[in-house]
């Protein structure tokens, strides 16, 4: 009966129309670097008050899901993540574009984002409370170890350039110390600039490093490169084959689970989910060697997990009333404007509303599937048709506008510039970018939670071993270090043997 009512509430032309508007807005905002999903939802929230709750929520949920998905489009096409959640999609997605597989890259992004979105909505429908209560187990000690676990990935994303990767990662950690000290409130390395009080903002750094850095690098290669025939060629297929789909099942299945759980943990989002999924999926994958070099499977893994985060974040928001990230914080505000108070009582008193939201999540993803597959070929073609200078100019403008739009501050634009030059230097010296990004995302989380834990325990480190979750994460991090060292020494022996032979 419930399901019939929900269907009735959702399958109205007006609701579907607002959903479509939301999906289109979300697509544009998500694909443009810097224009964040949070900002889009905040801007559209006042408009939704003029609408029926279901119509308004249809629009906001459309923006949310489409925004996270569309962030992957710019990651694949121009190597600049549209939102932080797509940061890992640049690694393999852009490598595919350079190989001339932009169409397949966009297709995978769409199909697996939709799978992630729908999977997580279904999980939300059946297991909201167990998952939300599990998420509550994450205290400072667990967050600290989660961040440590993520940081251990600096090694696996560095590939062959292990030493350079570690150097870049440590430099990132240093940059991450800028801002107000969490425990004592002192300003650290802020040079008296008020805007740096909250630390170096991550999104302008990301935009500069990937967007501006890439443009500078390409400009200096004018004339040097041989024309890449495949790049200008046919788009090819956009959907993975059934065989690929089956082969990727273990890796993508794992990343779906990781995405939902990380999404449910307050304070972590699509960026951390895709970082963790990428690394864990790589471990169980048959295609390990190609992760980071344009593996379609790796792209599927990251796209899936950052969209699976949405259902997880909605779970914690609705079941416990806890805003896990910026978007759910705004959504709580919107729900309250409709006099719906997220929390356990919502599932009892406002059950139809909960079901409608879950239904809207699924419908939003079906819309994305349509829009995504319909535009994948033409977007890839358009990129092929445009001359490189045109792309550079457009991307540069988007980067600057985007970095200003984050908090309407020119300081952020300067940071994007500086990060762009840094990204250029990294590229010229073959320094991997990913460790730097990991350090900037995870460094502050690690530091704050480590120190918070030690404040709570009075300086004892025992809690990291006695708490089961942090122990598991600690063991996984140590394994990750050991296996990286083992692999690197094995690779060295192999090259040495080859050199002898």
């Amino acid at each position, binding site marked *: 009966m419930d399901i019939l009512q929900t269907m009735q509430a959702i399958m109205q032309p007006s609701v579907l129309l607002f959903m479509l508007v939301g999906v289109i807005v979300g697509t544009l905002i998500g694909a443009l670097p810097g224009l964040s999903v*949070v*900002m889009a*939802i*905040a801007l559209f*929230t*006042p408009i939704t008050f003029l609408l029926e709750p279901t119509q308004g929520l249809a629009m906001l949920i459309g923006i949310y899901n489409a925004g996270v998905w569309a962030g992957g489009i710019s990651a694949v096409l121009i190597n600049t993540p549209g939102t932080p959640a797509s940061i890992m999609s640049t690694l393999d997605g852009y490598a595919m574009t350079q190989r001339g597989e932009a169409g397949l890259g966009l297709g995978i992004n769409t199909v697996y984002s939709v799978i992630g979105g729908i999977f997580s909505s279904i999980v939300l429908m059946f297991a909201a409370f167990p998952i939300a209560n599990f998420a*509550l*187990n*994450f*205290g*400072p*000690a667990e967050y600290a170890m989660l961040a440590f676990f993520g940081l251990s990935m600096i090694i696996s994303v560095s590939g062959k350039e292990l030493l350079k990767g570690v150097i870049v990662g440590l430099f990132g950690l240093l940059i991450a110390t800028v801002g*107000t*000290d*969490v*425990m*004592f*409130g002192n*300003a650290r390395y802020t040079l008296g600039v*008020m*805007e740096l*009080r*909250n630390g170096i903002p991550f999104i302008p750094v990301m935009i500069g490093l990937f967007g501006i850095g890439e443009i500078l690098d390409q400009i200096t290669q004018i004339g040097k490169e041989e024309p890449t025939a495949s790049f200008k060629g046919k788009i090819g297929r956009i959907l993975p084959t059934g065989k690929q789909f089956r082969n990727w099942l273990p890796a993508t299945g794992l990343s779906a689970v990781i995405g939902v759980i990380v999404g449910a943990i*307050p*304070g972590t989002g699509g960026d951390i989910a895709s970082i963790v999924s990428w690394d864990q999926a790589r471990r169980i994958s048959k295609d390990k060697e190609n992760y980071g070099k344009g593996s379609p499977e790796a792209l599927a893994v990251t796209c899936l997990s950052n969209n699976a985060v949405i259902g997880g974040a909605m779970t914690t928001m609705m079941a*416990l*009333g*806890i*805003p896990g990230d*910026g*978007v759910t*914080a*705004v*959504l*709580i*505000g919107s729900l*309250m404007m409709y*006099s719906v*108070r*997220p*929390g*356990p*009582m919502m599932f009892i008193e406002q059950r139809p509303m909960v079901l409608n939201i879950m239904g809207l999540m699924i419908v939003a993803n079906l819309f994305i599937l349509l829009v995504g597959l319909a535009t994948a070929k033409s977007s890839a073609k358009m990129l092929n048709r445009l001359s490189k200078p045109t792309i550079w100019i457009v991307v540069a403008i988007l980067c600057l506008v985007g970095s200003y739009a984050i*908090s*309407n*501050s020119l300081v952020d634009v300067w940071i994007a510039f500086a990060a762009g030059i840094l990204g250029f230097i990294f590229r010229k010296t073959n320094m991997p970018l990913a460790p730097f990004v990991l350090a900037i995302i995870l460094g502050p989380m690690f530091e*704050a939670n480590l120190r*918070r834990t030690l*404040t*709570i325990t*009075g300086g004892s480190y025992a809690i990291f071993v006695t708490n089961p979750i942090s122990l598991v994460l600690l063991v996984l991090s140590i394994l990750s270090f050991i296996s990286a060292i083992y692999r690197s020494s094995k690779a060295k022996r192999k090259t040495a043997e080859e050199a002898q032979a």
Partner: protein
Amino acid sequence: MKKALLLLLTLVLLLSSFAVLAEEKFPNKPITMVVQANPGGLSDQVSQEIAMLMGNDLGVRITCVYKPGASGAVGMTYVEASPKDGYVIGHAPIEYAMLKTLGFANITPESNTFLGQAYTTVPALTIKADDTRFSNMEEFFAYAKQNPGGIKMGNAGVGSIWHLVALGIEKAAGVQFTHVPFEGAAPAATALMGGHIDAIAIGPIEVKAGVDAGKLKVIGVAADERSSAFPDIETLKESGIDFALVHWGGFIAPVGIDAEVEKILTESLKKAVESEEFAKFMNERGMDPVFRGGEEAKTFVQEQFDYFAVAIPEALGK
């Protein structure tokens, strides 16, 4: 004759255009509301609500723009440097009186025109609902006295208003807490729900979902009077702990705006704050609408500023 007529016509036209000019009163175009925080939080919700109510009253659209950063210093400094025509106003919560002493920015009560106070939020002393050691204020403070440093007290960040509240309670009750700063009030409330800390004293809106979920329990409010949002919860003073420090918020405009414009804005703010709709909005969020305007408001801000100039260095041991 014709010339005279033309002259007359011109005169009439001129005069009438002057009349139009004189009649074109403030406001005649959209007003910008600077929100000093990110979208989604309490500052955003209150600013949007007031923007809507004042906009309806003044007959113009009031749009919110976000200038987050440095605990609100970025947004408030932005208002300070805005054109002095009254078309830029901003939300200024209690940090307005704290930021200079905290060393974040040179913001004093004279930096902006304080249009008026709009609301207060009482600090709600909150514990875990299933805590076996204490379930009311008496037991809580008895336990705290016996176990110096045994109670892990979360707050919303070093130097934040909720940190000062925790320090104030500590001092007034003669106990010792272990203070655990979080990056904002919501993560602190979440940590309490998960049992990672023992207590918090933060705005009711942050703990309400946890209370509804049966995971958290409010045992007291650090205010002079009980909050209209929680009439059953006693104040700390009723338990003999002489401490009250209430979070508040108001709205500002740049210094040097026309006195007439200031009056129009303040009157409109007053109407908004005293409306039934705002009362309902505040009550749903566990806050109280309180209007203070004109000289009274300016004196109040100065008093708060002077209080924090002493309280913050004392609290942080600087």
